[in-house]
């Protein structure tokens, strides 16, 4: 077996790691701006597939299949995003004689449509969020739209039929906001997924986002795992995920997991997938959608269940039988939290902060897992998602995991660009977060009322920052005057001086 990874960044690195552990050669693909990306450096082979814009490289099906052919790869792992939930791609792989590491094109086609997936859930007897069963026609009139909105009831959510990750999604409080919201959601969905169809769902009040990871093999076994809690979202985008959820007790866990498994079984689902639910304050849960791929947040499940999901994806397409004990899959061992480290400036409204990574020291030590996607010297490009690493903390209990996360966030150094690390340091200190008292609206509410910088230092640290900036200028000026050039050469010089001293 040889696997081509049709992706980039941290998820490509994650898949390369799984391949290496299984002793399977891994082939990377890259666009112009990713020549020196980490996934290229760590793969066994790497193939250039086009210019930087994703539409001309990572989204170009023929280019990727040609790369597999050229390198002798016989399987393709799509990661998440890009072509991961594209049934046309999955079918093109099949037609080219390549194993697609994921569900069948039919399952992707069915569950990838949010409206079709809702129907599947209803058929499987699982409650869904009240809403439209069909997307709007492209030429739906304002009157039709207004009537549909009134039928669903306000507040409601405009959602793209395709894709995921919170893109093409808008909350609407009042009827007059509906048309503009549909316009923006359509344009975002069109540019993100190439499909601008949208539909409406009732907005559940103060819901938690709870999701069930599952694996299905080709022998009829579907295993659901302990839930992930993904309610910490900024504008519908997950930024922190945990497992287990503080809001889910073992009884509820079994019921949600059983619901998820029954939806998956009803459509003959194979490989890794996730079913997302909203959980309301009364403990009722509603099917939201299915993601027919590996999720960004899969590590938290791995850390509390001992299961390597990526390795299992590969084993499943090889025809292996799932031999995971279903009881253990639902019995979390400790608690795991993931923070998504984005190249964004939290003090500028989470504006992307692309640029040269001049230094990198991920956190490590007890209970810490870093799934990084960039290396020193790499320029985070403007063309893709700004996720540069996922930091995961594990603890015997949730408070222990939170403490470790705080420690690790302080330890983590990314130099040259802005990241969301200071934001997470702040979030991990919020009393509601520490107490686990939050829903999907929590973070946006909190951020709306906040004006202070996330990078505030206490007075003593601010003094030391000023002193450091001065000393840095002083040392550079002195080194230049002494003809030593950069600090790098100065370090060598210092080293030589030390050696001399030791001899003397």
């Amino acid at each position: 077996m040889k696997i081509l990874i049709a992706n980039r960044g941290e998820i490509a690195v994650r898949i390369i790691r799984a391949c290496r552990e299984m002793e399977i050669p891994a082939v990377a693909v890259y666009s112009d701006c990713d020549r020196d990306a980490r996934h290229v450096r760590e793969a066994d082979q790497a193939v250039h597939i086009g210019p930087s814009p994703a539409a001309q490289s990572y989204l170009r099906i023929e280019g990727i299949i040609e790369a597999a052919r050229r390198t002798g790869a016989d399987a393709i792992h799509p990661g998440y995003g890009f072509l991961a939930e594209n049934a046309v791609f999955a079918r093109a792989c099949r037609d080219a004689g390549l194993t697609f590491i994921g569900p069948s094109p039919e399952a992707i086609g069915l569950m990838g449509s949010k409206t079709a997936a809702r129907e599947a859930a209803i058929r499987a007897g699982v409650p869904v969020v009240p809403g439209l069963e069909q997307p709007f026609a492209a030429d739906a009139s304002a009157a039709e739209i207004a009537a549909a909105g009134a039928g669903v009831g306000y507040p409601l959510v405009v959602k793209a039929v395709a894709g995921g990750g919170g893109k093409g999604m808008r909350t609407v409080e009042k009827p007059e906001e509906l048309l503009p919201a549909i316009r923006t959601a359509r344009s975002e969905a069109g540019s993100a997924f190439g499909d601008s169809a949208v539909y409406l769902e009732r907005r559940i009040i103060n819901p938690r986002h709870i999701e069930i990871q599952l694996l299905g093999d080709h022998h009829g076994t579907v295993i659901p795992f302990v839930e992930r809690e993904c309610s910490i979202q900024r504008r519908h985008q997950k930024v922190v995920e945990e497992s287990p959820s503080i809001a889910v007790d073992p009884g509820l866990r079994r019921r949600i997991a059983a619901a998820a498994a029954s939806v998956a079984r009803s459509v003959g689902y194979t490989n890794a997938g996730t079913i997302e639910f909203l959980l309301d304050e009364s403990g009722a849960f509603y099917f939201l959608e299915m993601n027919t791929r590996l999720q960004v947040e899969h590590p938290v499940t791995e850390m509390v269940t001992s299961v390597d999901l990526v390795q299992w994806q590969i084993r499943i397409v090889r025809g292996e039988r799932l031999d995971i004990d279903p009881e253990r899959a639902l019995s979390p061992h400790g608690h795991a939290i993931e923070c998504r480290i984005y190249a964004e400036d939290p003090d500028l409204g989470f504006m992307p902060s692309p640029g040269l990574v001049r230094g990198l020291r991920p956190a490590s030590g007890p209970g810490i897992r870093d799934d990084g996607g960039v290396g020193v010297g790499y320029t985070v490009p403007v063309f893709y998602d700004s996720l540069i690493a996922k930091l995961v903390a594990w603890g015997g209990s949730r408070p222990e995991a939170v403490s470790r996360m705080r420690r690790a966030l302080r330890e983590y150094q990314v130099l040259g660009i802005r990241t969301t690390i200071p934001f997470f340091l702040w979030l991990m200190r919020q009393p509601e977060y520490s107490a686990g008292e939050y829903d999907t609206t929590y973070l946006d509410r909190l951020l709306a009322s906040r004006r202070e910088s996330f990078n505030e230092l206490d007075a003593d640290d601010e003094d030391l920052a000023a002193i450091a900036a001065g000393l840095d200028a002083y040392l550079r000026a002195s080194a230049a005057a002494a003809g030593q050039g950069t600090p790098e050469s100065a370090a060598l010089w210092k080293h030589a001086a030390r050696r001399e001293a030791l001899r003397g």
Partner: protein
Amino acid sequence: MTFEIDINGRTRTVAIEKTVGGKYRVSLDGQLHEINAARVGVYGLSLLDGQAGISREVQVTPGTTRGELLVSLSGRTIAATVNGRRTGRAGVDAGGGDGEQTVVAPMPGRVVRVLVAAGDEVAVRQGVVVVEAMKMENELRAPRAGKVKEINVTPGTLVEAGRVLLVIE
């Protein structure tokens, strides 16, 4: 050597005198610190402050706009310039006199919405322009409170990184 450091919106005067063996007498706005400093890596400084040896590792790296430094410690990063405005090293982010500030595009993208009009009063961190880039709509915010002096873009404008979108005075 004496430096004027603009950091976190304040100007600090840092006078440095080397004493012996990696030790420095540093006057910060007239207040004396005995600093033991060691280079660690290309951008790092390990500082020990005073008798109590307060220890901080500080990273000082070039930022994404010219002349700007990013100073990181204790998990936070703040911007600084050294003798910045005086030596004329300020680049794309220099809006002119002390009273003016610009909003610049941090990356290439397309202007989706302009949320203010010339002459409007804006509060610090108020959203002023929305730019679509890296697959997301991004709201650019006012760096300080003031009045919108000029707007250089309209919805639909394609902008490069560093382009001045708006001036606040």
